[in-house]
């Protein structure tokens, strides 16, 4: 192995929460604590020396890095204060930026310096769309009560495709599309690198069905059940935050899909179905429960992180906080818009709704480059782990 240490990489990690990485003296206490570690591959001990030697090629293609749940046991037990958990977080942040496409946007999303632009892009785009749509008005209370935010971008005569939906789709779908494309690019590179480093024989490849059935689906089940998260020692209460948050996202996803179906597909034929849901509608209940779960989850994670930072156990990073801010913004503006609708304050409601749209677009647009990317990267790594342990990795019959 020819080693050319990358000093810039070390500096990046130090700046991104891994400032303690060079303290590691390879005692392997972390590997003893970590449930991911194996005898052959002491984790995160080997990642610590790779980091301190600036060996980024090894790190960004290391499935273990993405499998880590940042449970914090390694950091708690580290006798030298090297905080391996934080270092791994920094490595992931680096990897998301590295694999992110387009790289300019990925870089932008990696530091607080980019924050004005990060908020500016969706804000300006949505505002321009609002201007173009000609909606551009604050409705009266009566109108607001009937239609809520469903005519934010106005209405037109063409009944088969609502103007509001048209405009929302105009910016949300490309945002999500870009994110999905970017993730596809990144994950393909990651998979390739991981395979290369693991020494996979490219001649044996699983079929799509095999891949989904044997590797992806069990991973998803594991994720939903939070099986590994529950193995965490130090930060075990993060499950209390992360589980409601994840379920809230699933819930909100279902509600959004239903809402689209109900309003803009069924609603085309049954006009009475078009319009805000009543409070006792099961989907509405689900939506509200999800919103509360989301805010609760964010609150738990937020306060855990703040506490741990206060005690000096974790380093404060943009990477970690940006996601918390984003989700909190989505939750607060979403619930805020609803409350303002009930209160019948159209002007403020429209402003908060605008902010909600901005927050949601940010969530979509920056998904591949921020901590949220773990949804895709961790899932991929978990699938790879199963693949790595499967018959595909066993040598051919001798």
């Amino acid at each position: 192995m020819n080693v050319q240490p990358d000093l810039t990489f070390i500096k990046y990690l130090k700046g991104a929460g891994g400032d303690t990485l060079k303290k590691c003296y390879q005692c392997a206490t972390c590997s003893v604590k970590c449930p991911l570690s194996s005898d052959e591959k002491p984790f995160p001990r080997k990642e610590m020396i790779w980091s301190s030697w600036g060996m980024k090629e090894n790190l960004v293609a290391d499935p273990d890095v993405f499998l880590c749940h940042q449970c914090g046991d390694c950091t708690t037990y580290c006798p030298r204060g090297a905080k391996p958990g934080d270092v791994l977080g920094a490595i992931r942040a680096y990897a998301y930026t590295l694999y992110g496409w387009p790289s300019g946007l990925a870089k932008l999303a990696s530091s607080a310096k980019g924050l004005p632009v990060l908020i500016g892009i969706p804000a300006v785009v949505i505002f321009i769309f609002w201007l173009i749509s000609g909606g551009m008005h604050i409705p009266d209370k009566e109108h607001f009560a009937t239609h809520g935010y469903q005519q934010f971008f106005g209405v037109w005569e063409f009944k088969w495709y609502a103007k509001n939906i048209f405009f929302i789709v105009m910016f949300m779908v490309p945002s999500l599309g870009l994110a999905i494309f970017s993730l596809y690019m990144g994950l393909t590179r990651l998979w390739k690198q991981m395979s290369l480093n693991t020494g996979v024989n490219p001649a044996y490849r699983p079929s799509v069905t095999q891949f989904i059935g044997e590797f992806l689906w069990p991973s998803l089940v594991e994720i939903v059940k939070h099986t590994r998260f529950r193995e965490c020692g130090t930060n075990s209460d993060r499950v209390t935050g992360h589980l409601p948050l994840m379920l809230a996202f699933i819930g909100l996803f279902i509600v959004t899909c239903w809402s689209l179906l109900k309003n803009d597909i069924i609603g085309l034929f049954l006009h009475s179905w078009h319009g805000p849901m009543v409070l006792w509608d099961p989907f509405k209940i689900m939506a509200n429960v999800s919103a509360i779960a989301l805010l609760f989850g964010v609150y738990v994670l937020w306060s855990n992180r703040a506490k741990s930072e206060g005690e000096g156990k974790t380093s404060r990073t943009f990477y970690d906080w940006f996601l918390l801010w984003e989700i909190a913004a989505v939750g607060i503006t979403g619930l805020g818009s609803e409350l303002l609708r009930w209160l019948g304050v159209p002007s403020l409601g429209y402003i908060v709704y605008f902010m909600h749209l901005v927050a949601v677009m940010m969530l979509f647009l920056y998904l591949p480059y921020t901590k949220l990317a773990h949804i895709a990267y961790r899932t991929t790594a978990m699938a790879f782990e199963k693949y790595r342990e499967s018959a595909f990795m066993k040598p051919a019959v001798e």
Partner: protein
Amino acid sequence: MDKKYCAYLCSGCGIGDALDMEALAEVVTGEMSMECKTSEYLCGAEGRALIEKDIADNGVNTVVIGACSPRVMQNEFNFGEDKITVRANLREQVVWSEVKPAEGAEPHAEAAAFLMESAGDYMRMACTRAKKTALPEPFKLETMSKKILVMGGGIAGMTAAKEAAAAGYEVTLVEKEAALGGKAAEWRKSFPTRSPWTDLEDSPVAALAAAVQQDARITVKTGTEVARIAGAPGAFRVSMKATGTETEWDAPAKVTTEDADKISKGEMENPNKGLKNYMSVDEAAELHGAVVLATGWLPADVSEYAHLGYGAIKNVVTNVEFEKMAKDGKVPAKVAFIQSPGGKEHDQDFPYCNSVTSMVALKQAQYVCQDNEDGNAFILYQHMRTPGSQELYYKSAQQTDGIFMTKASVTKVEENGGKLRVIAEDTLLGDNLALDVDMVVLAAGMVPVTKEEYSINLAYRQGPAFSDLSLFDGYADSHFICFPYETRRTGVYTCGGVRKAETIEETIDDATGAALKAIQCLESTDRGVSVHPRSGDATYPEFFMQRCTQCKRCTEECPFGALDDDEKGTPLPNNTRCRRCGTCMGACPERIIGFKDYNIDLIGSMIKSVEVPEDDDDRLRILIFVCENDAYPALDMAGMRRNGINHMIRFIPVRCLGSMNMAWIRDALSAGMDGAMLLGCTYGDDYQCHFVKGSEIANKRMENIGDTLSTLGLESERCAAVQVAITDYDKIPQIVNDFVDEIVEMGPNPFKGF
């Protein structure tokens, strides 16, 4: 001195419970015809008052104490320099060492009688000793210099000079180079010496040199070498010369008796041609009392490790060469520091490496990162030693972005397109490494100058260098752990790199200690007492020269080269070089060497005073000569732990096994005793002998006596020599009891009663 004796028995500490004190007192008053008094608490105020009253009122000046070990209560039983005190160890060696019967077994019917016989013998021996011993008269030099010679003007020498001067002593500081400073003057930076222990500091050399040059008590002689040092502590005659020149006063090489024969027959060229005889007196020499040797160290040769390419590949350098580069300018950007040369063979560091070379690698790695923004310094080690606060420096180096450390077996350094490639296996990275670097730095160790040169240049009969250097990897110490400053030549104290590879900070402490040792030597010599390890001993070996046969055994065997000789080979003692071990006394076949309180006749008489019963297998007598330094305290400890020792054994303490004269073994066996043993210290390269060679010499003598016994028809196994350590107190009873069992097996001495 007209001796007036009185013996005192103490019945405290269980002695009175185990022994019949009246019967014991009768042994003293009867057989030994000495007045005897008993006290219940002799070391207490009452007991002491009893003795002091006798001293004051009855003029008692020779006191025999039958109580505890002579190693305890020394102040309580010290009645002044003009009184003689002899102690019989009734407590630790008799009462407390009684063999207890096995559990459930009845004690031996005669157990009490055995104990009384032991106690009686120890009182007989003590009384005999009291009769034979004489008050010592300190040896005083006619002319005594209290000036200290410091050899070497580096950190160590300058500090020693400064500290000795600060204590009020005149100092001559000799430096062979044109300027003071030594090796440390060539370093770019020195290690941190204060909190937070992370920042390199400027070398203290310049400030120290200025202070030394300004000191009125210090005479600095640069560009000067010591040609030879003749004489002895208190009166060393130091001949000096300009660096690099040859003079007739250069130290003469050692010429053995065999060499001398060959030279006289013309078979060998005299190595000392043109040089003055070692006994010649240089009138121009300057008198000094003690010497601090601070001649430093030399970088070890690393060219033997072919796979590392030193000498063959350009840009493979030693740490010393790299430091020079760093001092003169910028160092390369990519550098590998190799600490251990063993490859896959072994994990040892370079010879003569210790924590200093670890620290140097950390320091030089910092240079790489300081001089180059993109600097990469790789430290490949098997051991990283950063004791004490130096650990903090290690941590700070570790946290430098451009410093990369791993444990590794470096298997090859090769040229690779104008650069160097370092191949390493067994790394912490879990993979073999190939590093492309601009330069490779090898952690050459610090070899003491004494390994390569005489350095001290003595004009002694035993030669110009320290003795037995090969035993100690070229280091001159007497015992690194126990007597760190003491060399194998009294009055010469080493410090700095010549004593141990050490940092500047350590050197400063070390040199201060050496200066104090030199002062201790001056003051002890001035008072006419031994410096070390028998500090304060006013006796010294006295020779009855009329009977000397010039056999030269004493001059050869003295571990400290204390004896010179004249052309005929008659020994010329230098009492201030002497450590009073008595090795000469043990060596002398004519038995003409002795001390006032320790001589052939004295110990011989003690042996003869032991009662040897006839025809009784339960009453054999086995004599054990015990080294006072480690074995005797170990026996005391065995007694304190009530480890039983066979009742047939009698112990006699000796200054060192080296002082064992084989006449004593003959005395014992001819007195009808059944066996004799020597109990002394370990020798060899792990030696613990306080006098370096004593136990080794005694062992050789015992081998010879075994042959003598065989010719007399006695089993050579009746004599044994055993090496023990002070920590063997739990094993010694077993060792001596097993020896007794062997003797019992052999049966009594057939010459008993003749």
